[in-house]
């Protein structure tokens, strides 16, 4: 008879002891929760950890979180300044790609972030290296490491020569999780000033005509052209998606004088613009 009292008491004791164990440890917030580690770069006394949602670099827009660890004290450094330079080695030359500065994430102590838009890669993911320069307490450090950049299934970035003889790079940033709705579309537009410099292009217009080639080039209504937002230097527009599946987002790039730099209208004769991005969900 007593057994039935003992069991619950034993359970209570067990669980309460467990929870009291937790109470004794000072709670540590995992500031990279929900992110996957891409790579660790060890540079003498520091280690740099690179994270994003997928845990790998892919062509297109990559939002990257970084942490910098002091290997001696085993703590994360909270007041460093960082910058980076991704470089792709080609047979005869090398070039970089569009990227942001690295800034501290608001509300977090140890995490820095920024984005890199890889416009291309080799089939096996090779070719890219990443140089990180950082300053801790007035001391400069630098490290270079080979990285892997995988080819994304769909065309989420376009690198093209405009009719003004300038090379542009356009990358799809949002929607990351598209739905049958009017989606907020966000793209980044950069020009290739030289092999290593890719400044933002402001105040152009990108027209949008989403199509489903699998459905007789079905289009959706009430899309809007993408316009520049000088608060964050990206382009925004409305993208209507009437069903799931493969969408080809046909685009035209117009400069500030409404001159077409790249792309054509989609008509019955012309199935697709030469400037497009792809989306599948």
């Amino acid at each position: 008879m007593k057994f039935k009292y003992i069991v619950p008491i034993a359970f209570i004791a067990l669980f309460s002891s467990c929870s009291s164990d937790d109470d004794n440890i000072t709670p540590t917030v995992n500031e990279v929760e929900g992110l996957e580690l891409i790579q660790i770069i060890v540079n003498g006394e520091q280690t740099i950890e690179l994270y994003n949602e997928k845990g790998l670099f892919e062509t297109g827009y990559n939002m990257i979180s970084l942490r910098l660890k002091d290997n001696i004290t085993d703590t994360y450094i909270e007041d460093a300044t960082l910058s980076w330079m991704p470089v792709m080695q080609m047979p005869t030359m090398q070039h970089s790609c569009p990227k942001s500065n690295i800034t501290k994430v608001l509300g977090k102590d140890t995490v820095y972030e920024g984005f890199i838009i890889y416009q291309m890669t080799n089939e096996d993911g090779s070719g890219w290296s990443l140089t990180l320069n950082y300053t801790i307490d007035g001391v400069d450090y630098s490290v270079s490491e080979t990285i892997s950049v995988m080819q994304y299934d769909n065309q989420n970035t376009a690198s093209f020569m405009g009719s003004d003889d300038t090379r542009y790079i356009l990358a799809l940033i949002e929607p990351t999780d598209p739905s049958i709705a009017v989606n907020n579309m966000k793209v980044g537009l950069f020009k290739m000033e030289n092999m290593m410099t890719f400044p933002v292009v402001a105040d152009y217009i990108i027209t949008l005509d989403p199509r489903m080639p699998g459905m007789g080039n079905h289009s959706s209504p009430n899309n809007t052209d993408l316009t520049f937002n000088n608060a964050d230097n990206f382009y925004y527009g409305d993208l209507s998606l009437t069903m799931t599946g493969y969408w080809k987002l046909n685009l035209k790039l117009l400069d500030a004088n409404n001159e077409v730099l790249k792309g054509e209208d989609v008509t019955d004769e012309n199935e697709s613009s030469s400037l497009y991005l792809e989306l599948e969900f």
Partner: protein
Amino acid sequence: MRTLITVILSWFISSFAFSQEETKETIKDTTKLKEVLVISRHKLSNYRQEKTLSSIDDYLEKAINVTMIKRGNYAWEPTMHNMASERMVVTIDGMQIFGACTDKMDPITSYVDVSNLEKVAIGSGQEGTENGHVIGGGIDLKLPTSKFNGSGFKSGIDLGYETNGNYKTTGLDLEYTGNKFFISTDGIYRKSDNYDAGNNQEILYSQFEKHNISLQSGYKFSETQSIDANIIYDRATDVGYPALPMDVSLAEALITSLTHYYNPEDKALKSLETKLYFNTITHIMDDTKRPIVPIRMDMPGWSDTFGFYSKAELMKNKHHFTFNLNVFHNKSLAEMTMFSNNPNESDMFMYTWPDIRTLYSGMFIKDEFHFNDNESLVSSVRLGYHNNKIAKEVGAQSLQIFHPSVDDEKNRFLISLASAYQLKKENYNLSFGLGYGERAPSVSEGYGFYLFNSFDNYDYIGNPNLEDEKALEANFSFKQNFNDFEIGIQSSYFYIMDYIIGDIVPNVSSMTIGAQGVRVYNALEHASIFDMYLNSSYKISEGFAINATVGYNYGKGNDGENLPLVKPFSYFAEFNYYTSKFNAALQLDGNGNQSNFSSQYGENETAAYAILNLNFGNAFYGKLGKTILKYGIENILDANYSTYADWNNFPRQGRNFYINLSLVFN
């Protein structure tokens, strides 16, 4: 097989030997606004119902106010006063039930069979609001009433064959009726191959197969109280729709109810009937039988409804009151998956009905006031609260592509009023009625997403912000007898405000490959519908009679354009001979040229047609029961024709020989 033939033969012989019983002919009274079709298979002659094993659709088509829209040889859509499903309420014994197909391929009438029903009550216009808010009218498919008359075991067999389409029907029913308990069950099986239109033109994809079983049982607690349970299971498979780009691989319904009856004697309250019900429908459209399609797709749909009603009949002085309180909840969900011809591309998916919940509660009150033996005034009111909710978030989001503001929920308060004066004299009957009614948009009209209408070749998008549709109605009927000659006229006029119809949205690309564009449901400011039927009959002698009906219909919007699916000039004439054991009829059925067609909504001019039918019926009465034999030829001249109500003008059946045999064992 041989034993079966022997049984049938000996049955015939015994029937001939003991033929005594009489049946009464049920003649349709065209001056009554409330039309009742008797669906008993086991009577020799229900007026113009030449086949005992007709589908419900066939029966309905014989009603003056009803025309069936045909998309194939199965599941026809009833219309009343040139108004289709969304402007009507079709119920099964007061139970709300809604089709699960976004393309109206499964009207409710397709989920029951003649074996399930006793009669069909048709209420024209606002006379049809007992079970819901209507503009065109209401149809209630009545289940058999429970009986505790101690008649014991009864059984019946039905066999039917039609040459055109090799159409076979088999039915079996069994019942036991005690004094306190009854149970009855029946099953019916129908199968038809492709039929031939006139001139032996085979209509591909016009086949169908259907099973229907039902079980009904009742128990009588006391002289005043009884309870009744009813289950109907209906399953149609391999249903072809020659007029549409897709077929149906499965249309399945389970319809259940539990009813309590209270019939106090010698009180003002005559009866109180309360029913709890639940029904569920699964409908699967597919195109696997079509060899060439632009893209393969699956379009399943589901519709679940539960609810109750409580109906009381009160008699006080010269008043006869009917109260009906009803509540129901429906969930309609339909989706579409398209499989890209490029195998590397992922499947395309959308909700065509994004899980729409409808909650309705309402009250109906009717008073039949008899001034005297000849005059009466029937007035009714229905008040209802109608709530629609989009349960899937993506549903509201997808509609926002077309409508800037879409609320998840929409509430409507609906009102229907009707009043009719009736005068019945020995030589003439007269009635005059006025009505006002409102209705909420249907699920498709409110929330449909890229519903392809092959009639006008447009994709339709629902509009959750539609106003209620409202109608003012006036109707009139008159019938006069001159000895053996009778002439009657009946007419209805509807002035419909915010008439819901699809509006073309320019420069929006269709989803369906090959469609012309997209229409969003919107409303015409107003529309007018008028119809008038004139009928006459003359009794030549005791057995011989001739009758004829001509009809005129009119429908126009405020833009001066014709409304779609308005019946052209129609006529029907019949010469019949009738005795208690034999009947024969020669029928002429035709329509004039459809000159007032609606080109905007995909109609073209449907040519005039006329067909001849010949039918016979024999009744044999014997000690063991009776035998009803019906046989005849439809479309004797093998005309190749289609009517205004045939979807995309696909041709109707050519010449057809049929025979129906019903054996009833008492």
